[in-house]
């Protein structure tokens, strides 16, 4: 533990100012108090964190106020995931607070998760006092160095007079442009309660080196509209950028106006209602047949807030071989990174779509837009419907074992489609993406880019805190859930009535599936041999545990679980361990080279 035990709590002038709700600007505050007051001024509701030596001054300042609520997690990884889940569900910036050394390194997985999915987050990490930085002091790591490749930006605060401005900058950077996590590393002496300086929190911040693009280039948008109006086989391909950029309304208008088919990445699900007929389902490695075939045959691809990830494109040489590509993205470096595009448009998705809609309406006022009713696009739809009739998500509904797909469909029915669903990583994640049609953005919360097992439960905590009255569930597998299982204690402490829906197949299902396909069924270390009794485990944490083994019991059990409005319920659903996720495009294959479910694969593909 570091030196400098803080003085026992006494109400300082800052605490009095707090009580009187006086404007804090100009009041003398210590560094620790500045951290907390800055969070108050940012409107932060929750800080997810875990105390330790280097952040004790900050924790003492937290103790003396009530406006920022601190949520004590049981592992710093969960602090980052919970802040991330909060951010994904609300669109606000997630905040976490961790100590130096292991506190910071534990948070790195969560920071990298947020970075890969462009989630706005500010991480305040303690650091050893400035005079001992670099001396291999107790609980010292180079946090700025370790996090540098997985943050949008990071800061080491070396002067208390820069603290407030640095925190303001951190929030500004995290939430603007392409969002992302920002780490503020604060050495312990900077938060010294005995050194007070006048507090000033800058409302406006200007950085000469950082000017995120807002509006798209009108000339480029015009070129895009020209292409769209000529399209015979158009496809709209959307990603997480539509959710992050709050452009769901514009997207829906665009799709309705044009009548173009739309598909989405894993990250973009819900930005366009998945129950709508114009939605082709998810695309990519486990996307639908119709979505991937449409991608393969399209002549004009309109990519919106998506980044041509390898899980979407498959083999680049086979990606959309006939298409002119329009790409709207707020991050210039996303454009032509993996796939060369013809019409790049850099700007905020919502603003670009506004401009695009205006132009479309001007250009084709008679038809109320583009070419939905034009013969070529009607023919295109005919082809798509043919692909759709393949019923690529077909599975055996009469099985004596619970099929994971059935579990997800039942979850949809029991929750009436009104659910915030967080997920871990693996087969259950793909089944959820395929079988739970989200009709609103920010309802489907999962780690897409980094693929972090252990994300789901802590993320659900952030979501449930943000929306205490909403139904929140975490779909998981028995391997993933164990990676952050300790958070069941946090859920009890804060009375979070999350429902864990565990699709328990005894295997790391996705690993097993790959081993079956590509390693001649040598199931190397993918069988989880010593599973806990999840019912007793949940009970030992003070929660309700339930186990279902037969399809006939499933719906009633789920209804019972979701009926317990004020309880955390852990529903252990024993599913068929042999089930695989289909369709599947093997790594390195083209989008048109899908494996379909065995029941369909006698009909070979294009």
């Amino acid at each position: 533990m570091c030196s400098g035990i803080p003085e026992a709590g006494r109400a300082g002038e800052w605490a009095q100012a707090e009580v009187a709700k006086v404007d804090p600007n100009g009041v003398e505050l210590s560094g620790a108090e500045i951290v907390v007051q800055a969070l108050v001024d940012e409107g932060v509701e929750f800080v997810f964190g875990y105390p330790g030596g280097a952040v004790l001054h900050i924790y003492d300042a937290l103790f003396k106020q009530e406006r920022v609520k601190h949520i004590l997690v049981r592992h710093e990884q969960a602090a980052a995931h919970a802040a991330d889940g909060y951010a994904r569900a609300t669109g606000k910036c997630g905040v976490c607070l961790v100590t130096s050394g292991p506190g910071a390194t534990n948070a790195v997985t969560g920071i990298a998760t947020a970075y890969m999915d462009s989630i706005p987050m500010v991480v305040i990490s303690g650091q050893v006092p400035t005079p001992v930085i670099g001396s291999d002091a107790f609980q010292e790591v180079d946090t700025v160095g370790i996090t540098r490749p997985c943050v949008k930006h990071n800061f080491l605060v070396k002067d208390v007079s820069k603290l407030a401005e640095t925190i303001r900058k951190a929030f500004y950077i995290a939430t603007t442009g392409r969002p992302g996590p920002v780490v503020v590393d604060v050495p312990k002496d900077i938060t010294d309660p005995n050194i007070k300086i006048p507090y000033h929190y800058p409302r406006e911040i200007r950085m000469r080196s950082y000017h995120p693009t807002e509006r798209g280039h009108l000339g480029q948008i015009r070129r895009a509209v020209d292409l769209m109006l000529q399209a015979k086989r158009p496809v709209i391909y959307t990603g997480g950028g539509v959710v992050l950029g709050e452009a769901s309304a514009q997207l829906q208008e665009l799709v309705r106006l044009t009548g173009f088919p739309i598909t989405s990445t894993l990250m973009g699900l819900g930005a366009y209602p998945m129950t709508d007929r114009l939605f082709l389902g998810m695309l990519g490695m486990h996307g639908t047949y119709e979505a991937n075939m449409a991608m393969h045959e399209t002549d004009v691809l309109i990519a919106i807030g998506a980044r041509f990830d390898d899980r979407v494109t498959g083999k680049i040489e086979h990606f959309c071989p006939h298409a002119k590509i329009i790409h709207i993205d707020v991050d210039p470096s996303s454009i032509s990174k993996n796939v060369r595009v013809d019409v790049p448009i850099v700007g905020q998705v919502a603003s670009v779509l506004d401009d695009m809609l205006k132009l479309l309406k001007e250009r084709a006022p008679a038809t109320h837009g583009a070419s939905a009713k034009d013969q070529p696009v009607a023919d295109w739809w005919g082809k798509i419907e043919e692909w759709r009739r393949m019923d690529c998500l077909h599975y055996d509904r009469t099985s004596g074992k619970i099929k994971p797909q059935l579990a997800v469909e039942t979850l949809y029915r029991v929750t009436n489609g009104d659910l915030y669903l967080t997920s871990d990583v693996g087969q259950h994640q793909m089944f959820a993406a395929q079988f739970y049609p989200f009709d609103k953005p920010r309802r489907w919360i999962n780690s897409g880019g980094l693929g972090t097992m252990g994300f789901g439960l802590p993320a659900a905590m952030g979501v449930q805190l943000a929306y205490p009255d909403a139904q929140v569930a975490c779909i998981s597998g028995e391997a993933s859930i164990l990676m952050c299982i300790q958070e069941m204690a946090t859920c009890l402490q804060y009375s979070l009535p999350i429902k864990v829906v565990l699709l328990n197949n005894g295997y790391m299902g996705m690993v097993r599936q790959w081993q079956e396909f590509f390693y001649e069924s040598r199931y190397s270390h993918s069988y989880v041999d010593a599973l806990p009794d999840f019912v007793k485990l949940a009970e030992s944490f003070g929660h309700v545990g339930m186990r279902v083994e037969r399809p006939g019991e499933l719906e009633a059990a789920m209804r019972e679980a979701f009926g317990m409005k004020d309880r955390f319920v852990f529903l252990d659903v024993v599913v068929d361990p042999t089930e695989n996720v289909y369709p599947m495009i093997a790594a390195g294959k083209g989008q048109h080279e899908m494996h379909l479910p065995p029941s369909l694969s006698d009909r070979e593909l294009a």
Partner: protein
Amino acid sequence: MGTNGENDGMRHIIAVLLENEAGALSRVAGLFSARGYNIESLTVAPTDDPTLSRMTLVTTGNEEIVEQIKKQLNKLIDTVKLLDLTEGPHIEREMMMIKVRAERQDREELKRLADIFRAKIIDVTDTSYVVELTGASKKLDAFIDAVPEGLIVEVVRSGPTGIARGDKGLTL
């Protein structure tokens, strides 16, 4: 000795104005290693404005990769401005100090070589010279090639820096 890069289209000299903050250099170096970009040289020093550093880096790659490198550099929060000097007329200079063994029969030859290259001999001992030479990197390479085999003791090169021709400056 300005080169317009046309003969050597794969080589790019990129000038970057960076916030003169601790860690800015490591962000650039980390970017190149993390994304597997090729980096031939990198020099950095403060400018007349002490809050700004100017970095010159030389990289090779096809147009798509170099375009991506420039975008990624621009994306760094500490990057204020960036210019690919090889996109226009520019002047490239690198400084080299080279220590050569200069004994009886070689002394005159090395002196003459230095004169031909308009280099300066800036340190002399009974058995060695230190030669200072400034120019485009290719000129420095040529000098090294011209030194008779076995005489080079040590080579120190600054890495290239550059500036665009004309009245416009890479400033704020």
